[in-house]
Structure formats: C-alpha cells, structure tokens
C-alpha cells in the first residue's frame, strides 16, 4: 500500500492543535508507516505542495497571508479538514472582531496599549495586513471534515487519521468526537 500524503497547516491559532497532534507520542511512528507528512510547521518545507491527500488546517483566517494559503490548500488538497475550534468557529482570534475593523484593532493593540514607542506595524511584503474580520475556514473555502476541540484531544485526532488511512470517513458523533472547547 502506498502512503497517503498529509499536510498540516498553522494559521491564526496558538499551535495547541499541533501540540495535541504531537501528543500522539509513539503512535506517530505507527502513523509514519502509512502517511507522509508533506508540509507542516513541524517540518521545514517552504512551499505548499501539489496533490495532497488530506490537509489539517489549524487556526482561523485573520490576515491576507492566511487567506492566500487557504485558497492554495483548497486547490491542492483532496480533503480539507478544519482542525480545532479556531478553524471551525474562529474562536479566540475572533474576539478582536468585537472591537470593530482592523484599524481600530491595531490602534487598540499597538497605540493605546503600546507602552514603549507605540507605533503601527507597517512592513509591506513582510508583515501581512490584517483582514477586517477574523473568519472560520469554511466561510472562505469548502471544508470536508471538522474536528472540534480547543485543542482536539489526541485520541480524537487519532480516530480521524486512522479512518483517513483506511480510506473511510470518520464517524464524528458523541462527546469524545464533538465537544467544543
């Protein structure tokens, strides 16, 4: 059996979902018999590759770089998975939405709360501009599967990956598979 190509992506989130993935510990050795990780924040690859079988996306869509990558992911992946509450609900990163649009958010964070040399970040081409509102992944691209949780517990991630490896769709039901937070 040839290995399936899996990518994991870290957008606007805390990387907690990836930490939970790493909590699978020695089972990751088992996983590596069936899966090639072709792109991930824990693997040093610069460009999102073509022909990915499944991509787990952690984090919400908060800036232009997130959005650009989300489009690329959709184009190049057979299955896109919202990985954790930030991707699914926009969660904590979206708490800035209640402050208004991006300029009032930046003013609040960098000017009103800036203690040493308050200034707005401005490095075109280096620092990606914020989107006006933080959105869940499925509001910007089609998503095939959702793994709730902040973070999703490691056994929940394992259930999903095991199903994917076997070419099945995981049964997302019950507290163990669905609880948010």
């Amino acid at each position, binding site marked *: 059996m040839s290995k399936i190509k899996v990518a994991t992506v870290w957008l606007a989130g805390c990387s907690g979902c990836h930490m939970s993935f790493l909590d699978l510990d020695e089972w990751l050795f088992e996983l590596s018999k069936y899966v090639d990780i072709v792109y991930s924040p824990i693997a040093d690859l610069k460009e999102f590759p073509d022909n990915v079988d499944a991509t787990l996306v952690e984090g919400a869509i908060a800036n232009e770089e997130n959005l650009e990558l989300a489009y690329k992911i959709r184009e190049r992946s057979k299955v896109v998975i*919202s990985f954790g*509450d930030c991707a*699914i*609900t*926009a*969660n*904590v990163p*979206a*708490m800035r*939405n*209640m402050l208004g649009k991006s300029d009032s958010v930046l003013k609040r964070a960098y000017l009103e709360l800036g203690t040493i040399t308050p200034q707005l970040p401005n490095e075109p081409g280096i620092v990606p501009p914020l989107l006006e*509102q933080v*959105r*869940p992944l*499925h*509001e910007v691209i089609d*998503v095939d599967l*959702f793994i*709730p949780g*902040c973070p999703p517990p490691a056994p929940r991630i394992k259930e999903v990956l095991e199903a994917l490896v076997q070419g099945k769709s995981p049964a*997302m*039901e*019950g*507290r163990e598979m*669905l*609880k*948010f*937070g």
Partner: protein
Amino acid sequence: MAVKRIKINGKTISARVDESILEAAKDADIHIPTLCHLEGVKDVAACRVCLVELETPSGNRLVPACVTQIEDGMSIKTHSPKLNEYRRMIVELLFAEGNHVCAVCVVNGNCELQNLAIEVGMDHSRFEYRFPVREVDLSHNSFGKDQNRCIFCTRCVRVCDEIEGAHVWDVAGRGYKSSIISGLNQPWGTVDACTECGKCVQSCPTGALFKKGSAVSEMEKDQSTLEFLVNARQKHEWTR
C-alpha cells in the same frame, strides 16, 4: 384521576389530562431534547429545541412539546430526520448569533448549550457568525453577567419572578438588539430588588450568569436548590 391516551413514536402511553407532551414523554421515559425548559417554572417555548411532529389529517405539524397540551388520540414523533435537522439548525443559529467561545468560558465542560451541540451532532455552524458587540456587567458583588454567552432562554427572568419573587430580570429590545436587563436597565449591582439568592445564576444554561472568581471550566451549575424549593412548594411541605 382522568387519563388520556396518546401515541409517542408508535407506542401508546397514558398520561394525566393536564400534562404537556413534554411531561407525558418524560413520565414514559422518552427523551425530548430541551434548552429553555426548566423544571418548576412556566414554559415559554423560546428555544424551539423540543419541537415534535404531531400527526394531523392534513400532514405532520411541528409543535413545541413543552407548551402543547396532550389530547386524546394524539400521535407524536419525537425524532425524525426533519426534526433532527431543525434541532441542529437551531443550535447552529444560537452559536452564530452570540459570541460563544467555549475555550475561555467558565462553564466549559458543564454547559447545557455545549452538551446540546453534541447531542444534535453539530460539528460546525453552517450560518455565518455575527460577532455582535455585547456587554459584560460586573457591578454585582457576587455574580457577573456576560451577554456574549446569553441565548435568551429567559430562565433567569422566570426563576427570579416565579420562585424568588424579586423580578430583577427582564428582556429589553427586539430581535438582534435584545438584551437581558436588570432592574430598570441599571447595573445589576445597583438593583435593590436583587436578594443575591443566586437562583438566576444556577438556572442559566450557559456561562452568561456566573459566580465571580470562577476561571475557565471552573463553574458547575447546581439546580438542586431550585428543585428543592419547587418540590417543597408543590407538595405543600411548608403549609401548616
């Protein structure tokens, strides 16, 4: 005692004449999901989660089980693909309407809305999130109110009025501008009518009303005091 016969999910059951569909189902150990319903206070059918299918000659009608009185010969379905879909849509709309950030909520893990999302099989909301701007009131000595987490079930309004008799809470505004207000829309801490009994806090299904000083996942709602009071009142335990 007068009894009526109804059919729930094809099974014939007997129920007291004055019972609602929800009460009759409960007596027969048939589960109907609820959210705004609270034992001991009047039902208002605010959330529509308890909708059931009532068979009529002109087709099936959806009725809220909590406020629909049983009638002889009624035939009801509590679960069907249509009902399951509607219940899930209701929960998704509740999540999209407010700011429900489970990860930073005092009742994470002990929340009736969160549990209902699991029961209806919600893995995401198909409705666009609104991210409304809503207020937090921390003026009370012992309790706090976070409107971001409110689903307008009005349990707090009803327990305070019907059980405590203080009527601190009310609903103000219409539609998406609705809010739960204390007193004459004053900060909770300045409302003299509040007896600080905490019944509203314990009856709240989410983390909208909470005990001050509780951190994420620390608060567990305890409705045993409410049950005790309601039972004692109904059984006239305090009447000499």
